[in-house]
């Protein structure tokens, strides 16, 4: 029994696990809106855009959170407005805006070679290097995003379902979109050090898709996706300690495994229903 709690003796593991649970839940929550808006690629793109902002902040000797946060927010807003106001599809808008932002980061790195290594963590995640301050920032961001989502729950639901009709019924869709872009950018900033640019997309999309397979109700999808994100954060951290594999990758692999399990369960249930109909 003691062996089960062994990892928790280490502060780096305790901090990392708490961060993974918070970030997992946060990505699961935001991911529902991303999946239902058919913007799955935004997690991938925005995390790259944020990387550009982080490099700019480093060059200007500003806080990582301020630089990456502002950059991410502006990019998310630009994507939303480009999609709403032009005939450009979401995937194309994400592709143009975020890769341009990422390219700014890469260009600056190649110009100022001295900090190449410190950005490895941003690219691939460094969950074991989470400090108490990082944890505090992540907890604050998670709490703020949670409050925003709860306060705008109905407006976000209607805007995600049909933004045009929501406008007719008096929903201030532009404000709702702006707050959502802010929440999304904040979630990515909170996640970038834990999951890394390369893993965020999966953390945003996989729990939400898995939840969608399991329910037809919006509020149940929200609860399931958030729960799955947090649970895989905890279990993934734990497994990564014993199998000695990167924590971010373990969390994402676990999420992918649960997705396959949900898919198989659904296929079995459908086959069962067909058999019943035949009888």
């Amino acid at each position, binding site marked *: 029994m003691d062996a089960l709690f062994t990892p928790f003796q280490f502060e780096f593991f305790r901090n990392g696990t708490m961060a993974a649970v918070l970030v997992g839940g946060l990505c699961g929550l935001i991911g529902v809106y991303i999946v239902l808006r058919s913007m799955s690629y935004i997690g991938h793109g925005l995390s790259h855009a944020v990387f550009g902002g982080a490099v700019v902040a480093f060059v200007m000797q500003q806080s990582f959170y301020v630089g990456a946060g502002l950059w991410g927010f502006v990019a998310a807003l630009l994507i939303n407005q480009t999609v709403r106001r032009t005939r450009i599809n979401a995937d194309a808008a994400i592709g143009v805006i975020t890769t341009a932002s990422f390219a700014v980061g890469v260009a600056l790195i190649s110009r100022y070679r001295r900090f190449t290594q410190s950005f490895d963590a941003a690219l691939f995640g460094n969950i074991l290097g989470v400090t108490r301050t990082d944890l505090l920032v992540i907890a604050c961001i998670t709490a703020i995003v949670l409050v925003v989502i709860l306060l705008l729950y109905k407006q976000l*639901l209607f805007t995600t379902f049909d933004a045009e009709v929501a*406008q007719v019924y008096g929903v201030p869709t532009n404000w709702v979109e702006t707050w959502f872009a802010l929440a999304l950018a904040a979630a990515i900033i909170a996640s970038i050090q834990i999951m890394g640019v390369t893993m965020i997309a999966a953390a945003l999309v996989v729990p939400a898709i898995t939840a969608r397979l399991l329910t037809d109700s*919006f509020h149940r*999808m929200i609860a399931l996706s958030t729960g799955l994100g947090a649970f895989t954060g905890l279990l993934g951290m734990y497994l990564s300690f014993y199998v000695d594999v990167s924590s971010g990758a373990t969390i994402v692999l676990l999420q992918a495994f649960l997705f396959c399990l949900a898919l198989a369960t659904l296929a079995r249930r459908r086959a069962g229903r067909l058999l019943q109909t035949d009888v």
Partner: protein
Amino acid sequence: MKPLVEFQNVMFGYSARPVLEDVSLHLHPGQFAALVGPSGAGKTTLLKLILRLLRPVRGQVYYRDTPPLRLAYVPQLETVDWNFPVTTEEVVLMGITQRSGRWPWPQKADRHRASAILDQLEIADLAHRHIRDLSGGQQQRVFLARALIAEPELLVLDEPTNGVDMRSAENIFHQLAHLNLNGMTILLTTHDLNMAAAHIPWVVCLNQRIIAQGVPEAVFTETILSETYRGEMLVIRQDSHIFVQQRPHGHTYRDLIADPVAGGLPDHDVADGMAAADGVLPVEMKEKDGRAVHTFPV
């Protein structure tokens, strides 16, 4: 009486292509009107101008400003994302998003109100069903319920009978007539000219510009409809009823096949549909390749 909405010489277009030209229109309180015209005539665009989703390129749209006009909109069913995870009740409650409390979950009073409206539309038992699992007529009533919970003065519907069977369409028109009798102003678009002739007291014929407007008896003439649809229209008046059909141009199947059965059509094609549609009963039934084959009198 001051109109709820007034269009004055409105022009609208996408890019360089004009969709609406010189449209002048009044919508008075208590009016029940239908916009008719071919696809691409600008019906949905006109509705979106009324709903303030679009702004005219030229001309003015005036709204009654005190008190502010309460609008509700029922969009075309084709525009709905049927895979979105929402139940009937969740959709209906969207109609009062701005009026219900700050909490994410619905208040008891709101749920009661939603339930009463669903009951009025005879779909109360479907409150917890996913919207994809409903029939076309039921789906249309769900979106009507969402509009009604908002207690609008002006209800705007875009092709409310599209994709629903004739009986459901009839029911929808009856429900709308009932709402109109209780004082609600209603504007809808429809392709169903016969339903419009039977149920709607004011018709606006539109094809980029307003061709004519008035009571169906005055507007549904061969000349006006032919100009609206840019095709030859047939109007049949019988007692107090008006029936409209596009006059077939070119040939019909009767011109090509004088005798569809003896003309070499396979038995199972006949059995599957043609004769059944004419209400002809089969006189003989036999098995062919494991399928029941009906032969009909010619």
